[in-house]
């Protein structure tokens, strides 16, 4: 048996899903958090049943990829739990009526029930149940209230006998139901509503956006740097280094196996950045250089997501994004890309057209460095001075804008207009936020670290076999001539396909000048997506568009690198 959680975007389906199945999924306060389906299992009575978290949809006439997925899923379900936002019954009931017409046994979860009281909304549950003809259970998913009743009512799901209506008839029916079950008491504006309004007005909204983005950046750097300076560097240098050195002696201080496990030991010291062994660089890069920024970034992103700020940013930036062939909501995949490009490419599913998805995915893969790469840029380029980090970011930003304008001009079609629901501001729940942070950090640990370690082994073997030397002589005209980098730097570009953080780390032992580091970082960021992003791009764009996208990436990287080499 299969149970589907269906409802409008941003009504709490993912939170209810986590409550029912114990499977934790990313939940946020903006429409379109869930862009693919997640499955989990729960017990109903004695039976174990499958539960599916379906992307949110306003109607059963889909307008974007995420909604199409929702519609396809619907035809496979045995029971529907229709999650309804109790503070906006009018709009939610339209989908409810459409679902009833599908003749699938159904239960309604009236979520965000706690919000109705202080918003002056009074809903007559008995009457609503009578109108719909299926069980209606009030729930507060974030606290778990009503979930038990919801589960108990699943076996009582009723096969509706609704007639098929036209859209006009449906809206008329919604109107008459609302007239009889909902009573609104007028009340004054709260401070959070004033803040909501101020966030989308040009002047106040602009000031708030600048303040939010600036403090987000500062907080990420502060947390990231503090974790490195006070926790990770001391642990690695004082605790781990002596142990590795001891092992190095045991392994005879050299040789092929030693170099893979420990790395090159120079003047009796393990250099965590440059040694390039599994236990030195292989652990130091992911844990001590990247992880702190992953934690810091996702903590701040999670906070902004749960407060509900991101859709407002979309409104403020809409005009600019239109110049790039996108609309404001494309800022969501872009911001997610600053963490990891994989979920960012997936999140382009919230955009309406294929054209928009192509432009957004290409721009993210080229000009939006992931947190792992950014951490390395801070770590390595930052040593040469903050101004060089600024040049890297400035260049990528200019590339983002320029390439967007070009793609908007070249790719056939037009950018659709923004049409989004803006959720109310909510106070984030600390427990939920920490759970989400853990989910993302855990994702990084299990997905990134094996690849980092694998990359270290591959690098050592390729060096040993002399493969890099062959590639280096072959590509020297481009790498040395055009980009002004030493010929060995091509090894980093090759390894960039595995992990960009490790790849940038490979530039560390080459003793590059500040300018060369800037060129190297920019080219590495733009040149080609890492393997994880590549796979997702291939799946989401298809082979032909992926090839086009890759062509854009390679040419943009070489042109930008060449220009930087000339003017710096």
């Amino acid at each position, binding site marked *: 048996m299969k149970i589907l959680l269906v409802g409008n975007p941003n009504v709490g389906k993912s939170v209810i899903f986590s409550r029912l199945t114990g499977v934790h999924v990313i939940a946020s306060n903006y429409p379109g958090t869930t862009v693919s389906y997640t499955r989990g299992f729960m017990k109903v009575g004695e039976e174990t049943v499958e539960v599916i978290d379906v992307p949110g949809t306003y109607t059963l006439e889909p307008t974007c990829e995420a909604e199409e997925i929702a519609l396809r899923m619907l035809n496979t379900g045995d029971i529907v739990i229709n999650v309804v936002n109790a503070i906006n019954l009018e709009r939610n009931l339209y989908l409810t009526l459409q679902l009833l017409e599908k003749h699938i046994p159904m239960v309604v979860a009236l979520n965000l029930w706690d919000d109705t009281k202080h918003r002056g909304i009074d809903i007559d549950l008995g009457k609503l149940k009578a109108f719909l003809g299926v069980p209606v259970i009030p729930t507060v998913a974030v606290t778990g209230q009503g979930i038990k009743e919801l589960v108990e009512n699943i076996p009582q799901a009723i096969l509706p006998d609704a007639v098929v209506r036209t859209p006009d008839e449906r809206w008329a029916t919604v109107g008459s139901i609302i007239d009889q079950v909902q009573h609104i008491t007028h009340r004054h504006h709260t401070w959070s509503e004033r803040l909501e309004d101020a966030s989308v007005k040009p002047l106040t909204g602009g000031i708030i956006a600048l303040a939010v983005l600036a403090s987000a950046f500062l907080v990420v750097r502060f947390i990231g740097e503090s974790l490195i300076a006070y926790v990770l560097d001391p642990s690695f240098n004082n605790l781990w280094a002596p142990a590795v050195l001891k092992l190095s002696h045991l392994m005879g201080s050299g040789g092929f196996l030693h170099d893979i496990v420990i790395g090159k030991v120079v003047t009796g010291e393990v250099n965590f950045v440059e040694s390039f062994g599994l236990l030195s660089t292989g652990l130091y890069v992911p844990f001590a250089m990247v992880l702190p920024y992953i934690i810091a970034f996702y903590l701040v992103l999670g906070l902004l997501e749960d407060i509900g700020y991101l859709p407002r940013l979309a409104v403020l930036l809409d005009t600019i994004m239109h110049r790039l062939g996108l609309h404001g909501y494309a800022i969501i995949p872009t911001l997610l890309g600053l963490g990891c490009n994989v979920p960012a490419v997936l999140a382009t599913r919230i955009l309406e057209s294929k054209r928009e998805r192509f432009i957004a995915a290409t721009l993210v893969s080229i000009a939006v460095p992931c947190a792992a790469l950014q951490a390395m840029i801070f770590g390595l380029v930052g040593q040469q001075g903050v101004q060089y980090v600024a040049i890297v970011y400035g260049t990528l930003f200019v590339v983002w804008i320029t390439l967007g304008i070009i793609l908007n001009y070249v790719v056939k079609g037009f950018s659709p207009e923004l049409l989004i629901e803006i*959720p109310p501001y909510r106070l984030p729940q600390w427990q939920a936020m920490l759970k989400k942070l853990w989910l993302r950090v855990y994702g990084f640990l299990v997905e990134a670290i094996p690849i980092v370690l694998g990359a270290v082994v591959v690098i050592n073997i390729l060096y040993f076999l002399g493969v890099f030397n062959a590639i280096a002589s072959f590509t020297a005209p481009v790498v040395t001539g055009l980009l002004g980098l030493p010929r060995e730097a091509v090894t980093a570009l090759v390894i960039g396909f595995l992990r960009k953080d490790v790849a940038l780390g490979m530039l560390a032992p080459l003793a590059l000048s500040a300018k060369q580091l800037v060129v190297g970082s920019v080219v590495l960021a733009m040149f080609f997506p890492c393997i994880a992003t590549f796979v997702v791009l291939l799946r989401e764009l298809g082979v032909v568009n992926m090839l086009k996208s890759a062509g854009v990436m390679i040419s943009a990287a070489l042109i930008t690198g060449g220009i930087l080499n000339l003017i710096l």
Partner: protein
Amino acid sequence: MYDRKLITLARMQPGRSGVVVQIQGGHGLVNRLNALGIIPGKKIIKISSMLMRGPITIQVDRVQVAIGFGMAKKIMVELD
């Protein structure tokens, strides 16, 4: 009949309220706006509009919706 103050949502002043009377667009646009609760007869309040023909934010029922300028030009509102 000309004393009715009809105006497009795009030209409406922020802060004003009114009732949606018509959506002058194709089936697709009407459907998408309807799905967000913007249907003829619905009372709305315009909260803001961005500069340079940017999106317009309105309050409909108890949610805010941001609408692109081009779409907002097609929504006719009768001012209160």
